[in-house]
Each structure stands twice: as structure tokens, then as C-alpha cells.
């Protein structure tokens, strides 16, 4: 069991917030789980993608803490594109603040690429 101080962020949570803030800055604020895993891998030059359990547990925990919010996309969009529905996350004001507070923000947005077909907000 990981014990941490209130407000302290785990490394994965910082990475997810960086991805979320990077996406927001590029005018495409929503992202889905796999997109985040891929962005973290590209950004950090890792060889592997974040594990399923680790990724979705962290996303759920961060949503419960108010750092991210999510919605399920319109099923018609998914049906037209012939794929399962995506759960789309976006950073909240509290999430941006938490990232700033950690002092770990990397200001460049490298490795974040809008997904194919995604329109800027």
C-alpha cells in the first residue's frame, strides 16, 4: 500500500496531468486512456506502455480527487467509426493547479499529438 501526504502526486499522476495539460494547450483537451498511455511512452521515451490496471486505476483515482473529469463519447460517433465508445478525460482547474504546485511541469508539449480525426475544441 502506497502511503503519501495529502496533495502529493505519484509519478504516473504527474505524467497524466502533463499529458492532459499538453492536450489542453494544443486546443484538443480530451483524451482517452490508450492515448494517454501512448503519449506518456513517447514523452518519456519508455519502451513499454503503462499497464492496463495501473493506468485505469490512476485515472479513476484522479477523477475521484477532482483532478480530471470524464465523459463517455456519443455512441453514434463510435458506431460511425466502427469502434468501441471512448471514455474521454480532460484536466480540471484543480488538476492544473496540482501540477503547478508539484513544480514538475514540463512546459514543452513534445510527444503529444492529436489523435487522427480529432477536431480542435
Amino acid at each position, binding site marked *: 500500500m502506497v502511503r503519501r501526504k495529502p496533495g502529493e502526486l505519484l509519478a504516473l499522476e504527474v505524467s497524466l496531468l502533463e499529458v492532459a495539460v499538453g492536450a489542453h494547450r494544443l486546443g484538443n483537451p480530451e483524451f482517452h*486512456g*490508450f492515448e494517454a498511455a501512448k503519449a506518456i511512452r513517447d514523452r518519456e521515451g519508455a519502451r513499454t506502455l*503503462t*499497464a492496463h*490496471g*495501473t493506468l*485505469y*486505476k490512476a485515472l479513476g483515482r484522479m477523477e475521484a480527487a477532482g483532478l480530471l473529469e470524464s465523459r463517455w463519447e456519443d455512441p453514434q460517433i463510435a458506431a460511425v467509426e466502427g469502434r*468501441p465508445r*471512448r471514455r474521454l478525460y480532460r484536466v480540471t482547474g484543480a488538476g492544473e493547479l496540482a501540477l503547478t504546485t508539484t513544480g514538475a511541469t514540463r512546459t514543452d508539449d513534445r510527444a503529444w499529438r492529436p489523435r487522427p480525426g480529432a477536431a480542435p475544441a
Partner: protein
Amino acid sequence: MRQPLIDRITLAWVRSYTRGIPDQLRDARRSELESDLWEHHATARRAGAGANATSISIAARALAGVPADLTWRRATKGALMSAQTTTVDGRGWIGMTTDILAATMGGFAALGGLGAMIGDADSAGWGALLLVTGLVLLAGAYLRTRRPPAGLTLIVVGAISWSLLFYWLVLTVVAGAVLVVLAVIATSRSRRREPA
């Protein structure tokens, strides 16, 4: 189009650890994983990655996430259980370690067995035994708190089989022995806590 084998195994695991979770949370986790797998394959296809490499990557993500899946399940279920149920089911760190170790060894054995059966005709027999061992361990981890005698039996049988299949590796034999000891201790503790 038929779903790739690794997707079916991963989704079967998701169905397994989300069983008994409230509908909304359960359906959300299952849908999110289905979407993730689809996106993984689509991205790999666009990048020109081979099907085998994608399957290995998905298997690695699924396996590495097993401990987080189990702790998520425990936390989700724990928040919903009454104090009495929590006491009966409260096995502490030994129970949790037993579940994680059995599930990790079981997942490794099941996937390794499948890989051996599919990839190497000479190893098909050994692969089948490894696959069965993995499934026995996974079933044991699943049943240990629900039906302690059956769960304990399956874990012990699976751990012995695991040790015999990897008898030339000291580490795996030790892991099998540790799992047996942990399972016995965890099961005896949970029995003592059951109300009269």
C-alpha cells in the same frame, strides 16, 4: 471479424476481477478496456507493427496491471462491504500477497503455456500442462476467499505443478513453496475470523 486471442484472454480477466462490482463501475471498466484494446490494435496497424508484437505488448500490459487490478477490486469492494463482512474477509497483507502472487504466477503460466502451444509444436505438451497450471492458479486465487477449501486446494496443486514444471529454476521453485505457505496461513487466518 474474430477478436484476437490475447484480447479475449484480457477481457476474460477483466470480467473475472470486475465480477461482483456494482454495475456502473463494472461496465465502465469493461468498456474502457475494450476501447483500449481496439485503440492499441488500430495504432499498431497504423505504425505497421506486426500482430504478434502487438499481442505481446497487450499481454505485457495486462500482466503488469494484475496487482493494480486486484487492489482496485479490493478497494472498490471494501468500500461497499459492511463492517462485519470486512472483518470476515479481512485477510491483511498475507491474503493480498497470496492473491497477487497466485494471480501473477497463474497469468504468466497461462500465457506462457498458450505461447508454447501455438509457437512450438515440440513444446505443445509442456505448454498445455503450463496452461492448465496457470488456470488452476487463477481459479485458486479467485476462489480463495469465496470457497476457502477449494481455493486453497487449487493454489497448492497449482503451485506444486508450477514448481515441477520449472524444477530447474531455483527461483520458481522457491516462489511455488512461498505461495503454498502464504495460502495456508491466509486461509487459516480468514477461517479463524469467521463468526460462530
